[in-house]
């Protein structure tokens, strides 16, 4: 098994809502990605929406299962029939100060598979952390499983903030995993 770089994106400026990776090669077994960044705005950290969307599909075919710790409390839940894969409030913003930093690691097994009858699943581990007292209560870490309930090969990934913009220098790196 080997990993090959497909794309690496660094956000410049303050006008980007989504990092948009199109024409993903259909030659790998799985996909794997790293995301680092946060929102640029001053919307409260815990209310920044963060979405993934595949193949430009905005129909109600997305679901989520989440379990995470925030502050001193554990949260768990699920959602169905969403128009994006979403974990709101997770990545943080520039609220209060710029000291929020967020990370996401994701894996998409069988992204070309069109015959598994459950669409596609994305396994993700995410966390965001503030190093100042006013942000610490919004730091969070946990697991996120997303589902796109469509039997299409994934050829496009949009990831970002529908109502905010990226902070400059946020990054997204996409790898293809080869079965050889």
């Amino acid at each position, binding site marked *: 098994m080997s990993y090959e770089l497909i794309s690496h994106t660094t956000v410049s400026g303050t006008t980007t809502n989504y990092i948009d990776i199109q024409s993903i090669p259909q030659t790998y077994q799985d996909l794997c990605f790293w995301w*680092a960044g946060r929102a640029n705005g001053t919307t409260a950290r815990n209310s920044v929406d963060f979405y993934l969307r595949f193949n430009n599909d905005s129909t109600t075919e997305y679901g989520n299962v989440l379990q995470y710790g925030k502050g001193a409390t554990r949260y768990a839940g699920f959602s169905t029939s969403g128009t994006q894969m979403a974990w709101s409030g997770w990545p943080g913003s520039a609220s209060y100060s710029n000291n929020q930093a967020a990370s996401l690691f994701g894996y998409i097994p069988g992204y070309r598979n069109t015959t598994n009858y459950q669409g596609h699943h994305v396994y993700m581990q995410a966390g965001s952390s503030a190093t100042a007292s006013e942000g610490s209560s919004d730091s969070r870490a946990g697991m996120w499983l997303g589902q796109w309930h469509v039997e299409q090969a994934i050829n496009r990934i949009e990831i970002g903030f529908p109502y905010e913009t990226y902070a400059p220098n946020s990054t997204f790196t996409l790898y293809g995993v080869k079965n050889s």
Partner: protein
Amino acid sequence: MASLEIIAEGNVDNDSTSLSLTGIDQSYEHLSIDLNFQENQTNYRSEEFRVSVNGDGLSSYYYGGTHMSLKNGNAWLIQSFHQSGYPVAIMGFAAGAYQNSAQRSACRLFFPGYSNTNFEKSWLGRTNSQNYTAGDSDSLAFSVGSRTGTSAITAIAIRGSGGSNIACNYTMYGWKSA
């Protein structure tokens, strides 16, 4: 061309209280580290699994983080922290030698964008261990840590509670972005 390469691998065999990785190659975009880890203490089934970077000394930087952890047969423990004068990130819990002198935890750390100098750093962790004769010695944790400043991460220290030596096998990987 492969974009994932091994930067370092090795073993710590109860002769140090920490694994110290220094002079980390700055030519990759991301880092990940896999370990099987034990703190060689017999007082607790598991102890804190801690990370610090760049040789930070006392009061040098602020650290922050959150972990959600299962340990000692208890309910989920959720903790968030921010602190100076104590420059470590608590990345959950890892096995001690309380129940079994050979028990270790499987641990993985992710350091996205470790080599860039234009963004605050945060890193992810997960740990788990299982003892097949005592369920209350099992543990599981998901965590995030961060540190003030935008410096590249050039050194990483991994330890337990700090009071005892550790044992681990480790592999550090570099992930390319070009």
